[in-house]
């Protein structure tokens, strides 16, 4: 990027075979200079895109971003026109990530705020240790299925798995779903085999507020990726909640 690009509404940065550090520095410089949209072309597994950014603006990624996309991110919006790798939204605080494909493991690890929408499926440990605080309530919407350990240690926020297009026979979420969960909620597009649930979670009915949330985020999903909201909302949604806020409170003697 050149200096005269600053202040422009839109710049394109080619990632190509350059290391991630200069690429990310250019993205940061552009957005901090007030560029509205940075188009990142030819992304080949570059890590840390959007990491630690606190400004506004949007990054559109062509290609496959590497691990820790949107790590510590606190503001911007990222759109991935393809798949993403591991640890998307790691400890993310604010902003939005939209992935037009699948994502890898540990999606939304320790995420505290913002929204992640994934069109397809995700790997293991999605939503692990997600938390919420006051007005900060992270929301993750997964269109397909989730791997094992979905929502492990979850302490806050909302995880929605729609269970749309996925490989035949693949359950909507893998084994140990919600193990150690002690806050937040998971809403799944169909009931899970109880044997796949962690001991710390139980099934609950959707409240009117849950239905409003669901309508809102399914609306966002359809707006991003297409599809029919009413059809999706007609699925047999089930909510899973922690059975105790203090799963480990009773194991000590003084």
């Amino acid at each position, binding site marked *: 990027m050149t200096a005269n690009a600053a202040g422009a509404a839109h710049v394109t940065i080619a990632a190509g075979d350059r290391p*991630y*550090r200069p690429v*990310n*520095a250019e993205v*940061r410089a552009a957005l901090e200079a007030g560029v509205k949209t940075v188009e990142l072309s030819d992304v080949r597994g570059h*890590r*840390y895109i959007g*990491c*630690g*950014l*606190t400004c506004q603006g949007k990054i559109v990624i062509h290609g496959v971003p590497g*691990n*820790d996309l949107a*790590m*510590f*991110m*606190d503001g911007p919006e990222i759109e991935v026109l393809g798949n993403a790798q*591991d*640890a998307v939204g*790691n*400890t993310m*605080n604010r902003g939005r990530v939209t992935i037009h494909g699948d994502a890898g493991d*540990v999606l939304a*690890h*320790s995420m*505290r705020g913002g929204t992640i929408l994934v069109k397809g499926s995700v790997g293991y*440990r999605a939503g*692990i*240790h997600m*938390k*919420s*605080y*006051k007005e*900060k309530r992270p929301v993750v919407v997964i269109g397909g299925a989730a791997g094992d350990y979905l929502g*492990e*240690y979850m*302490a*806050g926020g909302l995880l929605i798995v729609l269970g749309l297009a996925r490989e035949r026979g693949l359950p909507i979420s893998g084994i140990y779903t919600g193990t*150690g969960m*002690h*806050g937040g909620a998971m809403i799944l597009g169909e009931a899970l085999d109880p044997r796949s649930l962690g001991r710390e979670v139980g099934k609950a009915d959707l409240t009117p507020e849950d239905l409003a949330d669901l309508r809102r985020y399914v609306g966002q999903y359809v707006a991003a990726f297409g599809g029919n909201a009413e059809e999706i909302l007609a699925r047999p949604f089930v909510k899973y909640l922690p059975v105790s*806020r*203090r799963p*480990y*409170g*009773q*194991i*000590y*003697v*003084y």
Partner: protein
Amino acid sequence: MRKWLVEPDFILTRDPDRCINCQVCVRQCANDVHVHDEEADLVQSDSEKCVGCHRCAALCPTQAISIEKASLEFRPNGNWTADRIRAVYKQAEGGGILLSGMGNDQTLPVLWDHMVLNASQVTNPSIDPLREPMELVTYLGRKPDRLELNRDANGKVSLATELAPQLRLETPIMFSAMSYGSISYNASFSLARAAQAAGTFANTGEGGLHKDFRPYAKNLIVQVASGRFGVDPDYLNVAAAVEIKIGQGAKPGIGGHLPAEKVDAQVSATRMIPERTDALSPAPHHDIYSIEDLRQLIYGIKEATQYTKPVCVKISAVHNVAAIASGAVRAGADIVAIDGFRGGTGAAPTVIRDNVGIPIELALAAVDARLRDEGIRHQASIVAAGSFRSSADVIKAIALGADAVYIGTAALVAMGCHLCQKCYTGKCNWGIATQDPMLTKRLNADVATRRLSNLLRGWSLEIKEMLGGMGINAIESLRGNREHLRGIALSDRDLNILGIKAAGE
């Protein structure tokens, strides 16, 4: 209610001739040992609840209180010691994991006490630190492989090599990670202020950074632990350095658990979690299952802070500590902190605190030797932690290869801690390991800051004296200089690992 078979640890006696019935002890004890019997108008005590923290005795205006170890002797037994018998009684009663606070209290050999320092005689004159400059300044961070210089047309030389970010310490002693939440506001505040006054650093621990401590952030190291409490870009950027907490000496391999009772409004805001919820730190970081993953987090933090701050990785001293430290350095750590098995904690399962991990003396020597052998010692600084009780322990650690040390327990003791080991109850009578407003106000932040500053000053002066005695005028010259140490009553194997000679050699 009296627990069956659980006998008191201490016997408390009140001398009726001295007691003036002022009830200070009644108000001071959060464990409800002392009660005022209205009818008899007498203060009475229940020794069974006494934790031996001395708060009542220290404040009793007439020295009426004495506290002794309960002399309810079991038949002497070197195997089934009283502590072990009592632990079984407690667990048979409660059926859970026994908790402890502070560090390993077992009587295993303390190797610092088996090492002695050198001093100059005749051939290499000693230096008088009162009259001659004595340099304790220490820089922590990655050092370059080589220095390249530029010479301009006028022959002026300047540095061409770009240096990695460094922490400058006026004295090689920092305050180790103690989170706000496990310790009180005033205790945290005092550590931050004392660090700033002394030109060194305090570590916030994993509990986030209270907004009031931000003015001291230049002297604070913030932690990123598995719970990621309070971690956001601002937190990472405001501090002097960022430490990734992999392990803690008091509880290697396990996570943490701040009980909901301690998560009040302030702690909740600092950790960014809802009030009165448990703060669970998982045992591993769930984005770190390998050295490669560790590298990923290190560089994630470097990206988020634009490579302006050193990143430290704190590990506990375990069997393969040297290989792990080497991996951390290769993963990009600028500082490696090693926490030995005597390191303190707010709460740990006793069985882990007392049985897991290795002494810092051996771990430090092994790590320093390994990094030297591999030619990467300059790529990271080493900070040793895990019970430094005096300036002698500190200077011995530096001679063994540490760049600096972290002190935790010693700092708490400076603020008044009496090592009662009951930090996990949240009822610290000294106002340190508690969030109870009645207790926290007992710790005056100005007094505590002064006491911490005094401790750092005292130890620094002593280190200068010892250095001068060795004929050394800069701490840099002692670093890893094991010739200045000799071992006493150590096995050949111990001497070998420590890389020191026996006294007399």
